[in-house]
């Protein structure tokens, strides 16, 4: 046997190991950037506390003056952490939607989940309608959540019909988007101008609605769904090769898809219900992750978590520094920051990522 034939497998595995190493470094880079952004988000604010004071307030809340404690624990921390959690949840939801539906345009927004949530919220804001008996003060998020889950359920039901392909599901989703947008417009037509203003404001998204309980629920959903996705990661990777190939590996494609859609709905519905529609993250977060790190779920999943978290965290910083003292709607900022970066990645990438 000649030496090239002998060394080829060794080369390949060395190349593979190098690739894995490179991806690990990329993930680490994301982690560092996200942490930096979080620190920046916590350190910046109209009350000019020093970083030292903020750190002290985070670590030993009882040792600092009441006002500093309130600013850090009741205002900055919930908002900054909510940015990470919401970004991560929406990005993962988008990533897995794109994977299971095998469509680059899929996201919680193209499937009508956020349009449904907006409609639910608008019903509450405009007419005080509670779709579900809920605590006072939680009518709007509960409404948004109920509508989001209903629309997801509708998609699940339709997707189980015979002969429905992934493309049909995406089309159904788009039909839902238009339906709920029309219903939203109908609500606005009958609502007072004040309610219309509130609805418009809600749909632009706002992290100032973040509270510790809401953050807790969002984190809980992420904590439940991520390990399940990780366990299914090889199957999900295989799904991208096509349904038939995946089935030939012994994967129950229909069951996997249904399971994934349920988890995606939870991941998308909670954040949208809590902070309004921050649409862009769910579409762009996963694309950025995929272009930088590839399709392998072992890396793609954590990368999506971090691109989403990072994108929203940066947006959170920008939204409060753009007009010092005022709050700029986060949904607007996210799109304006994400779009240029996204376009430069699309135009700059040499290989087809989709």
């Amino acid at each position, binding site marked *: 046997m000649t030496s090239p034939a002998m060394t080829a497998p060794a080369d390949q595995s060395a190349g593979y190991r190098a690739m894995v190493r490179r991806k690990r470094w990329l993930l680490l880079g994301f982690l560092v950037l996200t942490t930096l952004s979080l620190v920046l988000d916590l350190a910046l604010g*109209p009350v000019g506390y020093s970083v030292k004071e903020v750190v002290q307030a985070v670590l030993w809340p009882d040792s600092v003056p009441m006002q500093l404690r309130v*600013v850090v624990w009741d205002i900055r921390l919930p908002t900054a952490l909510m940015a990470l959690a919401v970004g991560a949840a929406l990005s993962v939801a988008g990533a897995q939607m794109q994977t299971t539906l095998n469509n680059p345009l899929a996201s919680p927004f193209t499937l009508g989940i956020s349009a449904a949530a907006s409609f639910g919220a608008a019903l509450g804001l405009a007419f*005080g309608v509670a779709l579900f008996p809920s605590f006072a003060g939680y009518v709007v998020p509960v409404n948004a959540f109920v509508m989001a889950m209903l629309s997801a359920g509708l998609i699940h039901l339709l997707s189980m019909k015979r002969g429905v392909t992934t493309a049909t599901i995406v089309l159904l989703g788009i039909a839902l988007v238009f339906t709920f947008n029309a219903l939203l417009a109908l609500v606005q037509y009958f609502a007072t101008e004040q309610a219309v203003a*509130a609805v418009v404001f809600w749909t632009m998204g706002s992290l*100032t609605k973040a509270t510790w309980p809401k953050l807790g629920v969002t984190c809980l959903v992420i904590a439940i769904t991520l390990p399940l996705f990780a366990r299914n990661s090889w199957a999900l990777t295989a799904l991208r090769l096509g349904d038939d190939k995946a089935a030939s590996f012994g994967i129950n494609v229909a069951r996997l898809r249904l399971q994934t859609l349920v988890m995606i709905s939870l991941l998308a519905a909670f954040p949208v219900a809590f902070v309004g529609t921050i649409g862009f993250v769910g579409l762009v977060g996963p694309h950025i992750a995929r272009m930088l790190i590839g399709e392998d779920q072992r890396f793609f999943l954590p990368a999506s978590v971090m691109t989403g978290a990072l994108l929203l965290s940066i947006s959170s910083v920008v939204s409060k520094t753009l007009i010092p003292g*005022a*709050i700029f709607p986060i949904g607007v900022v996210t799109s304006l920051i994400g779009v240029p970066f996204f376009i430069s990645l699309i135009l700059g990438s040499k290989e087809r990522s989709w």
Partner: protein
Amino acid sequence: MDKAEAASSPPPGQSITVKDLLGREVQVRAPVQRVILGEGRQLYLVAALDTDNPVQRIVGWRKDLIQADPDTYSAYAKKFPAIADIPTFGGFEDGTFDIEQAIAQKPDVILLNIEAQRATDDARYIEKLAALGIPVVYVDFRHHPMENTEPTMRLIGRLFGKEARADEFIAYRNAQIRRVADTIAAHQPARPKVFIERIGGYSEDCCLSFGNENFGKFVEVAGGNNVAKGVIPGTFGQLNPEQVIAANPDQIVVTSANWEAYVPSGSWIGVGPGADLPEARRKLEAYTRRPAYAGTRAAQGRAFHAIWHQFYNSPYEFVAIQQLAKWFHPTLFADLDPDATYREMHERFLPVPFQPGYFVSLEGAAPASAKAAP
């Protein structure tokens, strides 16, 4: 005598030229007998002119009064049941105005708020209506209430042939504003820093507020210093809750109303005509625990107040200004009684009785001007 009479109320059909709030010269046959209100809340002005029967000239109106101020609407509906028969229109602003329905009412004039201008221009309504001989006149008492309410009242008075009555209202309103403005100008008291929380309890978000217009302006006239004026570029906006802490306001004023229909058992404060004030005060108490107010001078001094939100779009805002002044400078305005002013205005100009309940403060609030920053 005869000549003066003729000048103040020309016989029907006589054409007069008026200048509206956009500076347009408009020909109208005055006094108008049939008018469409492009905003229902224009009734606030109409009622002060046609006090005996404010409904007589109105042949159509927008439904905003019924939705935004149901208490006032029901007070009028009780006395003038015919108000329920007035056809309602969609708004020009949102493009839901039905021009055919308007034409069918054969109005002598249509009164529009200036914010409807863009939509009206886009749809070329003015030209279409002009072709049918229906003039459109723009008025304003929301965008720049301090400047525009007076010319708006004078204009409507002229259209209705009620100039004297309009002048009487204008004089009364100016006198009431001067009671505050002159005292502030004469004494130049230290201006307390004031944060206005807009639509408290309507949205779960904190710190919606006013820039340097509307309530923001009222605060300034009343001798306060609106902490959001340098931060919010337009009339409406949202402050970072932390910014409120950084600004350290001496006084917090929450604009609110009974929003049971929108936010059932929400944290709104039900101030407004005939309000349950002890209950309103109890709900106001919860605002002292908001993170945005933690440790501020307002929180230390319990200087929290709630005021009826609809003053933001009412020619009766001078009553709100008086109350704000009394809150900011209690010793200076010890003799001023805003409720008495409002009652007197109802008795002199309006057909419906006054019901108190537009304002509430926490008990045990420390006097403000003593703590105000220089």
